């Protein structure tokens, strides 16, 4: 099989339900170039080393002109790039500023203390399953849960949440590598740009409001600003808020949904979790390895030629790091295609690594841990309605579009 075929197959919707055999094929050549497209990196150690390689850039402005032409540029001309698409030192400055109201060293207890509130949201959503023999886990649980959490964290009013679903959905879909004809791509981009503009102007208004009358939320804290790094500019704040919203949202939906799907496919593990809720901690780590919500990072490029695994990746080349493939690399993980909920030595790539490692991972972990233990504890005899479930189109943020679960009743 040639590399071209592989790349197309990864983005091919037909393979969404089970991309892992393709990744196995891909790993036969750890670093491979798709015709005149990106370099694909599929093995654990190579991905890991590139994530810590200062010659790798997350800023697509560093792509060579030829490469840049083939990549759909989706930046909003009115906003600075979010820090996920920036390199140090700008990245570090903005990330530190965003971290100040979110985590250590300045706010170490924010996530820790959200535990109770998260538990209540979860209970409330599951209570809503009452009197129904079947739910769509995505629409009825996985989706509303992280949206509520991220909105509360940022300080977005509940009554505006519905509008967020629309915006966030559209924007997340755009991360999908381009497909379809040029016209279709252009149309898709058009929709995306509109969503982003609407979201941005909404957030700009809200940030201004919070600046005038601060509350105990992240937007207020960002708008207040302090410390050696100074303050974010208003547009940086909008850009960062959009990033937090998007990055903290579609991903968590998929982690929770993939989690239930995996548990329902492995009833023995489900039973173990029910008997021993502490198992959820390593189980979520294994989930992040086994079914990572972010399958690949398609936004990186190189600042210099990089020799790796017998290949030279030239300066300015587009680079795709296939995290989900690295997570199944038999050179790194024993029995990688088995789901082992208490797997030892599990240094997965699910949250990436290096300076761009997931900003929200402590929150994501907590959300998934609470969601899965409660779902498993409360649903009586849960069963999949169809397997495999229908998937979203997105090959990067991969997950089911719907997950029908039937059950006999709700425990208290």
């Amino acid at each position, binding site marked *: 099989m040639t590399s071209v075929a592989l790349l197309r197959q990864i983005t091919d919707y037909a393979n969404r339900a089970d991309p892992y055999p393709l990744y196995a094929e891909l790993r036969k050549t750890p670093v491979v170039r798709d015709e005149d497209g990106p370099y694909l990196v599929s093995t654990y*150690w190579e991905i890991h*080393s590139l994530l*810590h*390689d*200062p*010659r*790798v*850039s997350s800023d697509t402005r560093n792509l060579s002109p030829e490469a840049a032409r083939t990549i759909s540029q989706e930046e909003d001309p009115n906003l600075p790039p979010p820090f996920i698409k920036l*390199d*140090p*030192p700008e990245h*570090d400055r903005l990330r530190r500023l965003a971290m100040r109201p979110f985590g250590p060293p300045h706010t170490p207890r924010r996530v820790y203390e959200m535990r109770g509130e998260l538990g209540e949201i979860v209970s409330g959503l599951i209570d809503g399953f009452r009197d129904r023999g079947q739910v769509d886990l995505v629409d009825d649980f996985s989706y509303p849960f992280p949206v509520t959490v991220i909105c509360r964290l940022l300080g977005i009013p509940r009554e505006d949440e519905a509008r967020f679903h629309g915006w966030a959905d559209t924007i997340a879909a755009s991360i999908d590598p381009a497909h379809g004809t040029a016209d279709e791509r252009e149309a898709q981009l058009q929709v995306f740009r509109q969503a982003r503009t609407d979201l941005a102007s909404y957030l700009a208004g809200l940030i201004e409001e919070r600046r005038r009358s601060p509350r105990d939320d992240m937007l207020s804290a960002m708008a207040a600003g302090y410390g050696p790094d100074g303050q974010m500019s208003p547009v940086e704040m909008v850009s960062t808020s959009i990033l937090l919203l998007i990055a903290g949202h579609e991903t968590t939906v998929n982690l929770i949904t993939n989690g239930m799907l995996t548990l329902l496919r492995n009833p023995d593990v489900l039973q173990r979790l029910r008997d021993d809720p502490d198992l959820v901690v390593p189980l979520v780590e294994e989930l992040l390895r086994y079914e990572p919500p972010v399958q690949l990072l398609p936004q990186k490029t190189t*600042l*210099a*030629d990089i020799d790796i695994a017998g290949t030279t990746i030239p300066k300015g080349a587009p680079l795709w790091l296939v995290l989900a493939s690295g997570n199944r690399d038999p050179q790194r993980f024993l029995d990688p295609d088995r789901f082992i909920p208490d797997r030892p030595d599990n240094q997965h790539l699910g949250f990436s690594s*290096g*300076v761009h*490692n997931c900003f929200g991972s402590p929150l994501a972990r907590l959300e998934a841990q609470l969601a899965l233990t409660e779902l498993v504890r409360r649903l009586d005899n849960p069963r999949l309605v169809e397997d495999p479930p229908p998937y979203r189109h997105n090959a990067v943020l991969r997950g089911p579009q719907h997950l029908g679960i039937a059950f006999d009743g709700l425990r208290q």
Partner: protein
Amino acid sequence: MPPVSVDGSLEKLRREGHIVIVGASLAGLRAAETLRDEGFTGTLTLVGDEPHDPYDRPPLSKQVLLGRVPADHTGLPRRRALDARWRLGVAATGLDLAAKRVHLADGDSLEYDRLLITTGVRARPWPHELEADLDGVFVLRTSDDAAQLHRRLNAGPSRVLVIGAGFTGSEIASACRERGLDVTVVERGSAPLVGALGGVVGEVAAKLQREHGVDLRCGVMVTGLEGDSAGRLRCAHLSDGSTVEVEVAVVGLGATRNTEWLASSGLGAGPRGIACDAGCRAFDVRGIVTDDVFVAGDVARSPHPLFGYQFLSLEHWGNAIAQAEVAAHNMVSSSTERRPHVWTPSFWSAQFGVNIKSVGVPPMADEIIVTQGSLDERCFTAAYGYQGRIIAAVTFDQAKWLEFYQRQIEQAAPFPPEFTTVDRRPEGMRPVPADFPDPSLPSHGPTVTLSGHSPSDRRISFTPLHA
């Protein structure tokens, strides 16, 4: 001599031999655990002159002095159950190589089939004995030292003097400042950390100290400590003629190897430590390697292939563990199964809110280049070069990049680096002299590189100089 490995004697050793470990601290404990992991089921005895269970030292100059953790709360977690005999509070006083016996201070002696020496180092005391005995003069090596010093800092001394601005001294100064105590640091060199990281980085450390309110005096020596009539420290005299009034002085003048007990044993042990081969086997005074005496941790000096086979003495936490694991493995393995200790030196220190890490051997370097970030912002990565290859790197609050540089060192990559990186600043465009105080330049060597990701997978590739 009968072959040890192929007949049953190795098996017998593994099953019912007697292994003695002298020095019951980090290296000793981790070696003992590894021996059991490796399937050694014989008798295992650990001898330690401190009365405490093995404990961790790095927190002593950090969390403990800050008052966040009591001095007796740094006990090392066990990785596994040990089933060992502990002889704590008893020093080893002699070694009889021929009779394979270790003599103990309580008159007892222990016979061994294999001996591991992990006696580490101790703090070098203030050289004038009477002055050293003054009330208020401290060193910091043991948890007892830390408990006493902490108690004294709690009493709120008017000023603390730190003599020597190496890592430990700088950490002590940092802890004192964080507690709001006035501190004077006196360093003979041109800057703090200059011996370990060179003058360029030392300058950053100096600014860091001064910004945090340390009264830092470099290029100066303490010439004398003076007490009052009650024998309490009152002031210190400096080589520039000045006097500093202090109630507490902490002597941070480096360490002395604990090898005196081996003085007449015939082992190659002296003030610079115990020399051993890459497999951790000790040399005797004739330069012949022993079969049954192994060394690990701060007390060891071992040749490193990446650094011209120079004998390195590393007072590094990570080295103690890695070397202990290799030594333990080799103690119960046949010669072909033995592994070399090819750990790439790594170190960290936390001071003044900055995380300082290094890999490789900076003091070997002649040049340095700031590859990422900026010295002024105290957030940077710098690479060190020696004879056209990268041999070390240091980060200030940029630890996530360090493993890249470690690989560069292990692959003997060229210096200065031929590529650009993210966050390259104008100051990172060309290398400058690393500015070490006393460059003892090693000789030209062949090129050696390391490959593989795990200890059991490490390979050494050797390229002769004129191949």
